[in-house]
């Protein structure tokens, strides 16, 4: 616990880190306590209050169906964070498994996997998303699938490189000479040593995932209406941008704050734990 406290203090000492951590905390808390922070329901349609500009009654105004935008933004945070965390976790597991196989397995398998990673990475992200949605239809799972295809090759490559380095490290050699199985070596002697750096990289990838979800939902390819999503709010606002500017502002602001918050947070975390990576873009 004291280690965690020291990390938090270290982050708060950097101005950028303080802003980042504050924003992240704010976003997480507002998503968790969404139902307590507003008295409206996120998908309750109220035709009488269509296109109401921001007021004390509706702090961010209402959309084309009279739904309270603040409420939709708060609940949209749940969708964004759940997808960001869920999809990242799945990508991490898959990336680690593939990376360990590529790094520790036979040479030919390594080559095949590398080729596949490179090929997947050679699709421009949005094009890939569009193709997948054409095939499987828009849904939350399509978003997760796109996130995985975007993230897994990168994670697997890093894990692979680290595994290759550790493969000939003395403690791994020693374990092997004592007859430890490949599974045990990977689990006990290699994985714990490579998981730290990758967790820092992942904290910097959260904004990318938030952007993918919001972007796909903006195009109508992600979360289905009436589920509130920041991207979907942006899309509602975009259709009415000339008359009701507050809708796009309400949809874009949380995306900006979240991506900035997580990026600032991740950068500070990285500088704190791994100064070698500093200035790497």
């Amino acid at each position, binding site marked *: 616990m004291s280690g965690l406290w020291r990390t938090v203090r270290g982050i708060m000492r950097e101005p950028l880190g303080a802003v980042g951590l504050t924003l992240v905390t704010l976003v997480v808390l507002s998503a968790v306590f969404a139902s307590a922070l507003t008295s409206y329901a996120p998908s309750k349609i109220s035709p009488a209050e269509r296109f109401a500009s921001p007021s004390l009654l509706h702090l961010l105004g209402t959309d084309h169906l009279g739904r309270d935008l603040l409420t939709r933004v708060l609940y949209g945070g749940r969708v964004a964070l759940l997808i960001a965390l869920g999809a990242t976790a799945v990508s991490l597991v898959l990336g680690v498994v593939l990376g360990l196989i590529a790094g520790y397995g036979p040479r030919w398998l390594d080559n095949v996997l590398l*080729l596949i990673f490179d090929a997947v990475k050679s699709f421009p992200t*949005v094009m890939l998303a569009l193709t997948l949605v*054409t095939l499987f239809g828009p849904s939350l799972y399509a978003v997760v699938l796109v996130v995985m295809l975007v993230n897994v090759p990168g994670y697997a490559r890093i894990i692979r490189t680290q595994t290759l380095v550790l493969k000939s490290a003395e403690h791994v050699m020693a374990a092997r000479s004592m007859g430890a199985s490949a599974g045990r070596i990977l689990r006990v002697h290699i994985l714990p040593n490579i998981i730290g750096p990758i967790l820092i990289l992942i904290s910097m990838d959260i904004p990318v995932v938030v952007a993918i979800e919001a*972007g796909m939902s903006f195009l109508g*390819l992600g979360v289905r209406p009436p589920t509130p999503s920041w991207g979907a709010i942006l899309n509602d606002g975009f259709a009415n*941008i000339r008359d009701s500017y507050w809708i796009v502002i309400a949809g874009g602001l949380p*995306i900006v704050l979240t991506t900035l918050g997580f990026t600032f947070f991740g950068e500070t975390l990285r500088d704190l734990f791994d100064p070698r990576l500093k200035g790497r873009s």
Partner: protein
Amino acid sequence: MIRYALKRLWLGAIIISVAMMMMFAMVYLIPGDPASVALGPRATPEMMEALRVRMGLDQPVWRQFLHFYGSVLRGDLGTEVLSNRPVLDVVIEQLPFTLALVVGGITWSVALGIPLGCIAAVRRGGFVDQVIGVLSVAMIAVPSFVVAIYSLLVFAVALQWLPAIGAGEPGDLTSRLQHLILPSLAVGLGWIGYISRIVRASMLETLEASHIRTARAFGLTENRIVYTYALRIAVLPTITLLGVGIGHMLSSSVFAEIVFARPGIGKLVYEAISVRNYPIVSGAVLVTTVFFVLVNVAADILVGVLDPRVRSSFN
């Protein structure tokens, strides 16, 4: 050098063919019969059968696959289901609009990113450096579609300084450029941040080099050293970065094209999806992917030409 270039090209070719394989697999896995999708619910069984034969759907998988490969190599990406035009023609027609957008994005990012990176490196550790640092991170973090919509709101709807819709009058260069400013800013903004960061880092490294120290010893002004001698070397990593950047800009251009109602590949694919026009989707994605891989290969070869160290590390 030629060996390095050939090796890089070969790798690019392999990546493209694996990407094609995935493309084929995805199209093959489509739930539902492409022929019935193309013809709609009111098609007679005879019409369906005729189209299935024409599309080669009655053949075994491996033959379909070989056929797909062969036709792509011959430049035949199939015909569009709705208008019966060759897919390649439709895609090529839209390509210049998207390329203009990407070139515009590169222009923004290079024109602002390189000077910002140099200033930050010269003022290393100072207030200006920190401000540029935070700005760069912020530009990288904010998604391009938010930039597109907000810039549309501010500069086109509220201030009305720039046009909001379309690509401009054909033949009228001023109008075309005016229509390009906002969308290409949305596409390039993040890369201003990336480039300024990488130029700053490589400039700091270059300023330590011995030939720069010699220049200093000769009493050249700091500005002259930075902008004439050091920049030439410090700018090299941007080339590789832009190789990757073009792929991302192709992605962002989808949003920019939709938000600003511009023609282009992104809009083409987006509209093809809503009517389930598969040949257009797969054809356009294939063209973009090949383009992206080739750009990366070209960037790598260019860096290899400019920097012999890269060449040797590859072998």
